[in-house]
């Protein structure tokens, strides 16, 4: 296969775009697309102080690398979830990455606050680890973002499409109304952006590899059997038969959302009675969780 741009030997073929690209042209293609998304969705400006949530994985480290390359004012934010060896290795990857690139990282350790890691807490409160972890990370990120103007996360197209599929299966009106590549600041909720929303997981992994980013290859042990993985499997099957479906699914939804779900988007978010974090309930999920595990 030859690169569509320069005719050199290709390193990657993108079925949904029907193009093969060499390393240099793929990096250029990837970066231009993310830059376009940042501009079109008015995600970031060069005066913003951006807190980039990193896990040690390909997406978040790739995003931090790219935003730094694009000269944004970035700081990394890592939460040690206390998931045994997995957390130790991922923290090591984040530290090596940030030291090599001169990027400062804020590290928070869940075990310091709670005396135990995410796995133990999920068992105690009998909740699926991934949904609990997501909720806790969103809360802590927002709390840590005090002096920052924007929070950026490495969610990719596969993440967004599988979340959308899950929310549709459950008809989660509130979540469907708020799912967006960019959410403006509202009350105590910082502005949140997902610049990789329209790049696939495979593209993101290829970018990280080609840019020499050493990320954690292991899967989080708590994610085994996660529903989101099942949805991704379904979407990958569909994608194989009908390339580009995942992207059309998300983009089509975002167009539809603008016209039909605006009411849901503006729905009843109000400050938590205890901490002030915006929530649809009287007391937010994070405060209710802390109450349970501190009993």
């Amino acid at each position, binding site marked *: 296969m030859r690169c569509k741009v320069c005719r050199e030997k290709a390193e990657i073929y993108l079925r949904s775009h029907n193009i093969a690209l060499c390393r240099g042209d793929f990096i250029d293609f990837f970066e231009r697309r993310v830059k376009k998304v940042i501009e079109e969705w008015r995600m970031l400006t060069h005066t913003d102080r951006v807190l980039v949530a990193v896990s040690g994985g390909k997406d978040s480290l790739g995003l931090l690398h790219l935003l730094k390359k694009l000269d944004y004012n970035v700081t990394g934010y890592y939460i040690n979830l206390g998931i045994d060896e997995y957390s130790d290795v991922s923290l090591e990857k984040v530290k090596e990455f940030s030291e090599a690139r001169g990027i400062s990282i804020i590290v928070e350790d869940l075990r310091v606050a709670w005396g135990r890691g995410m796995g133990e807490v999920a068992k105690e409160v009998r909740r699926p680890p991934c949904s609990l972890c997501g909720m806790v990370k969103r809360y802590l990120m927002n709390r840590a973002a005090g002096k920052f103007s924007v929070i950026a996360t490495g969610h990719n197209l596969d993440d967004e499409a599988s979340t959308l599929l899950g929310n549709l299966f459950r008809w989660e009106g509130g979540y469907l109304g708020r799912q967006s590549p960019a959410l403006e600041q509202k009350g105590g909720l910082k502005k949140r952006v997902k610049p990789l929303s329209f790049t696939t*997981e495979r593209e993101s*992994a290829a970018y990280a590899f080609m840019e020499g980013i050493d990320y954690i290859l292991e899967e989080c042990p708590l994610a085994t059997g996660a529903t989101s993985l099942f949805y991704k499997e379904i979407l990958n099957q569909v994608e194989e038969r009908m390339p580009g479906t995942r992207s059309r699914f998300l983009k089509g939804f975002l167009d539809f959302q603008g016209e039909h779900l605006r009411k849901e988007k503006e729905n009843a978010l109000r400050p938590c009675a205890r901490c002030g974090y915006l929530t649809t309930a009287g007391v937010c999920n994070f405060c209710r969780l802390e109450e349970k595990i501190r009993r």
Partner: protein
Amino acid sequence: MKVWLALEKQEREVGGVKTVRQLLNHFSYKEEEVLVINKKESRLLTLDEKLEKEMDLRIIRVVSGG
């Protein structure tokens, strides 16, 4: 040829496959789920790439959960 499966942390000896596409079929991987790396040249391989016995390959799974 030697194939390192990164997620499983296992090395396998694979014979009888001539292209990357056949290699993925051998392990029942879908194209969207993985990247195949030629370790010596540190480069990605496309599905049509011809494989040779002395090649040292890595298959990285790109799907992450949570």
